[in-house]
């Protein structure tokens, strides 16, 4: 697989949110506007790339049995760095809305999942690209979600009025709105896959959320 493919697969074919269904909590919680989504996405991308590369570097040194705690520590280091960076440079308002979801990147299944599934088996560059692709895929999915929610709620995109005179529909900014939009996003993905499977004459069963996809518990 070429390096480009390593990068590209995270954006569409193995999109962490829409296909692998990892990292639901931040996806739902911080996608209330496109801006928040972008901020969260970039923070996660940073952690993903960093931790993936470091884990890939140390993968041969770490004994198999304690690898998960080691990975967690590495990830936690990067998360702490991001926390500090955000506190120093990000707008205060963004920092406030993202709140505890930044430290919670530690337990985001995407990060640990990629570490376990990819970085622990591949080289440094491939792992970095994988992290970058996954991070961008995550960011894009998050932004799509955030954009839809923000638009439906206030008629704006990145706080710019798109349709003047839009009656605010605050439901979409609240938790139920997150569930609804992501629910319909996943339904759309399913529909695409069903169509594709039908074209190929196969049967398609929609995936179930279970922890088997995040590999952490299968140790």
């Amino acid at each position, binding site marked *: 697989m070429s390096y480009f493919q390593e990068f590209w697969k995270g954006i569409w074919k193995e999109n962490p949110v829409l296909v692998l269904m990892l990292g639901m909590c931040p996806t739902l919680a911080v996608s209330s506007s496109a801006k928040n989504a972008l901020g969260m996405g970039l923070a996660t991308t940073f952690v993903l790339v960093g931790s993936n590369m470091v884990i890939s570097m140390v993968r041969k040194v770490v004994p198999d049995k304690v690898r998960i705690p080691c990975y967690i520590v590495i990830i936690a280091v990067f998360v702490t760095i991001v926390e500090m960076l955000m506190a120093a440079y990000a707008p205060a308002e963004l920092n406030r809305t993202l709140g505890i979801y930044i430290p919670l990147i530690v337990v985001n299944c995407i990060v640990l999942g990629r570490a376990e599934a990819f970085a622990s088996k591949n080289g440094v560059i491939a792992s970095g690209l994988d992290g970058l692709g996954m991070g961008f895929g995550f960011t894009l999915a998050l932004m799509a979600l955030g954009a839809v929610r923000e638009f439906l709620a206030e008629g704006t995109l990145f706080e710019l009025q798109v349709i003047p005179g839009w*009656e*605010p*529909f*605050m*439901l*979409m900014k*609240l938790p*139920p709105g997150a569930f*609804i939009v992501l629910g319909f996003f996943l339904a759309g993905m399913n529909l695409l896959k069903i169509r594709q499977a039908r074209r190929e004459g196969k049967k398609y069963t929609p995936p179930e959320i279970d922890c088997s996809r995040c590999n952490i518990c299968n140790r």
Partner: protein
Amino acid sequence: MAEHMSENTIRLPDTSKLVISSSPHLHEDDSVRRIMFMVIVALLPACAAGAWFFGPRALWVLLVCVASCIASEILCTRLMGREVHVDDGSAALTGLLLGMNLPVTAPTWMCVIGSVIAIVLGKMIYGGLGYNPFNPALVGRVALLLACPTAMTTWVAPMTNHLEWAGVNSVTQATPLGVSELTAGALPFSYWNLFWGRTGGCIGETCVPALLLGGIFLIALNIIRWQVPVFYLATVALITGVTHWLAQAQCAPPLYHLLSGGLMLGAFFMATDMVTTPLSRKGAVVFAIGCGVLTSVIRIWGSYPEGVSFSILIMNSLTPLIDRWTAGKPFGTPRRAPREVKP
């Protein structure tokens, strides 16, 4: 008689058009459509009262809700590629209930959006009538309440002069429950006004006699169970009564609670919705008591003045469990299961 007839005049049945089906071969003459129709009929007095108190725009709101519910159900079933069963009247009933739960000032776009949410999110995503775990009309109403809190809680005073049917009365007024929280102690509405529905509120919830009439009609037809409204209202009365007795300043008397807000509409028409409430009578009682507790808690201590919709939705989610816990042991099951005897 048979003896007098010669063999060739006796006609034997033609077996080529026979139908075979499972027993029983007799059925009661009732249908889903008739049940839905009867519920709609039972709601009409309250709708009429709403139109009388809040003016002709109330009818427009109801009409828009009913029409857009029916339209979105047809659209959804078409999209899903299933048989359209809109003739069973359940979509119309959802629309009517939703309309009755909206203030008369609700803009038309809100009525349409609420109806679409009610039908799509409340019913069709689960496969249509019979499979929805939540009451669709309440899903629509609560979604609107969260989405447009101001528009959903702007109430107009009921009309006093019915000669001026020209436009909507623009005098805003708080609902009895909203007021009672503000001016604790002194009751802002007389019981008489509360009873007849001469207060602010949603279109269909204020006129108690009309709702009672419809409810009793449905109980008489055995369409709803008397246990649900009785236990629901009794629980609310009990809890608000005790709270009122303990802290008069914070809680209005029980009768005030019973007569105000959407309690009557909820108890007779929402908590009795067949699809989303427990199947057995015992379960229905548990359900009603749960609704009563949650309603009282939200009304007395919550920041929403009204808790009927929320409490019914939450109890809806518990319905399968209530069903399971109250599933009657079959006839003859011993009280304590006998110890397994190995053969």
